[in-house]
């Protein structure tokens, strides 16, 4: 069996390789940064235009009040679940192969949430009234509705974002101390000195660090599940046809893990090349991530089938009409695209020789996320265009270029934040890779000793 990582990598080399990534990435890094800036610029331009002209330019109207904005909001919230999966769930399961790749997945969580938050602001149009969605008491007489899932959403996302940022930061403290100790004087050294809080790796620090990391991981798992369940409740607790489905929360959580895992594969491949991490982000680790993604893809496919079946056999005519309209109406290309990308394409991941084929995996992972984005769009728009009132039925809405531009721009914003993070902070956890190497070399020694004893 291939090894996840070589046991004989010197600890000094691990430091050296990761610290080098902060200073000397491949040229592709700068290409990605400039491309992301350009794409983000498109989004900014669209937002400025919409802000100055009015929401009409987004082609949002009644009944189409959410459009691509909320669909993309759900997409980015879903993407954020990968970090929790890799850091928290796999940490509790002692899956140590996650160690070289969990840091960037955690960063992905944070930046996805920051991107998702933008869409809430963008879709309300009046940016200065964003704070109306926050749950705070009634002294100003605005009477927030504490029984509304939209308000739960605001609170859940705030909790998730702040906890994720803290989790990412705390997990990085020992690595920040490494950067402080081994980088040349300059702004970076000052930054790391400040952020490492005087960490010296004492037994007291490590002991408390371990307990804290485990505790926060235990909190993050139910939190992540609650966040996407609450996002699902935005739909499922309404009376709209096609949304009022009991299986929505687990369906959303599975979809979130699915798109997050697919994004991890994409970013794994990019970071591995750009930062020359071939020794740490190894093909056996990629293979494990691919298998995990395949398993989640099948869960998502099953839950999709459950959702269709429960609508089909529910004797709820309006919901059934929405389902038929999705399959055969103006959105059918996107719905079938979702089925193809989300349920058919992942079958490629089951084929062994493709599980480590980087070009194939890059394309497949992008297609999977296209499928997951289409899924979110197919949750939001078809229901609005085929509600209980017949007057909604002739309101097929095609998103305007402003909406598309903003969706496009969000990918630039995310990529920009993510790539800047990877250049400023270590995207591979040095101390955890050392732990992985240390424990594996101990096992190896034990096996060798046992073998010698047997002879």
């Amino acid at each position: 069996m291939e090894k996840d990582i070589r046991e004989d990598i010197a600890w000094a080399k691990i430091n050296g390789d990761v610290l080098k990534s902060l200073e000397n990435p491949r040229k592709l890094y700068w290409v990605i940064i400039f491309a992301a800036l350009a794409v983000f610029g498109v989004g900014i331009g669209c937002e400025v235009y919409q802000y100055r002209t009015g929401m009409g330019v987004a082609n949002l109207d009644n009944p189409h009040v959410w459009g691509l904005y909320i669909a993309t909001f759900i997409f980015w919230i879903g993407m954020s679940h990968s970090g929790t999966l890799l850091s928290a769930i796999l940490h509790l399961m002692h899956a140590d192969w996650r160690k070289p790749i969990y840091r960037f997945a955690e960063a992905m969580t944070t930046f996805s949430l920051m991107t998702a938050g933008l869409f809430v602001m963008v879709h309300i149009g009046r940016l200065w009234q964003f704070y109306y969605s926050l749950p705070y008491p009634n002294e100003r007489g605005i009477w927030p509705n504490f029984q509304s899932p939209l308000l739960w959403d605001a609170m859940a996302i705030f909790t998730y974002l702040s906890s994720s940022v803290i989790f990412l930061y705390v997990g990085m403290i020992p690595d920040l101390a490494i950067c402080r100790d081994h980088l040349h004087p300059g702004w970076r050294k000052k930054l790391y000195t400040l952020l490492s809080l005087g960490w010296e790796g004492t037994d007291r620090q490590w002991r408390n660090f371990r307990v804290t990391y485990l505790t926060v991981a235990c909190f993050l798992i139910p939190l992540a599940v609650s966040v996407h369940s609450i996002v699902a409740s935005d739909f499922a607790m309404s009376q709209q046809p096609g949304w009022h489905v009991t299986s929505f929360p687990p369906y959303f959580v599975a979809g979130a893990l699915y798109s997050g895992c697919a994004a991890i594969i994409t970013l794994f491949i990019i970071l591995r090349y750009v930062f020359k991490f071939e020794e740490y982000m190894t093909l056996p680790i990629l293979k494990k991530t691919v298998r995990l993604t395949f398993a989640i893809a099948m869960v998502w496919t099953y839950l999709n089938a459950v959702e269709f079946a429960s609508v089909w056999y529910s004797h709820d005519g309006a919901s059934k009409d929405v389902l038929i309209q999705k399959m055969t109406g103006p959105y059918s290309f996107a719905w079938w695209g979702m089925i193809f990308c989300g349920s058919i394409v992942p079958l490629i991941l089951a084929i062994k020789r493709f599980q480590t084929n980087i070009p194939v995996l890059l394309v497949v992972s992008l297609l999977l996320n296209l499928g997951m984005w289409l899924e979110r769009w197919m949750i939001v728009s078809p229901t609005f265009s085929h509600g209980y009132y017949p007057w909604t039925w002739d309101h097929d809405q095609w998103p305007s270029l402003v909406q598309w531009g903003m969706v496009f721009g969000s990918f630039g914003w995310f990529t920009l934040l993510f790539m800047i993070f990877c250049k400023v902070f270590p995207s591979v956890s040095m101390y955890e890779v050392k732990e992985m190497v240390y424990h594996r070399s101990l096992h190896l020694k034990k096996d060798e000793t046992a073998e010698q004893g047997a002879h």
Partner: protein
Amino acid sequence: MSKRHILAMFSNFEDAEAVIYELRAANIQGFNFDDLTLKSPIEHHEVEVVLGERPAKVQWFTLGGALMGGLLGFWLISGAQANFYAQMKGGKPIVPLPPNFILTYEMFILGGVFISILGFLICAGLPAKRSPLYSSMVSEDQIGILVKADESAIANIKKVFLNHEALEIQEEAGK
């Protein structure tokens, strides 16, 4: 008697463990075993066996933070709802428990996470000033043993370090 620090660096955990066992067994006058600190580049579970029990108390902060967060959340929400009990609710409860549970739950987690981090900082003694003796090799691949002891004990401790082939020894200047 004035206290002084001495730091020795070792290339692996086995050597460092052997030194700690010897220092404990040597029963050196003027040296309290609790004043020994191990510094390492990675977390090393076996250290707890060697150093003896030094429990972490972060979980108590977590428990307190989570309970406080949950209670505060419920109090804020139900307080806001009850404040307006004159509002027509159509016979529905003024403080409905099932929907309030959601925000209480979120606040429970928020409180738990935030106070755990506070507990971590307090228990781990962070943020901290750089200790008088430190080697950047601790964050690379060496294990450090920092000892605070009476001036009279330093020579004996140093002898133990040298016996185990310490890679480097740093001493605080005498006063």
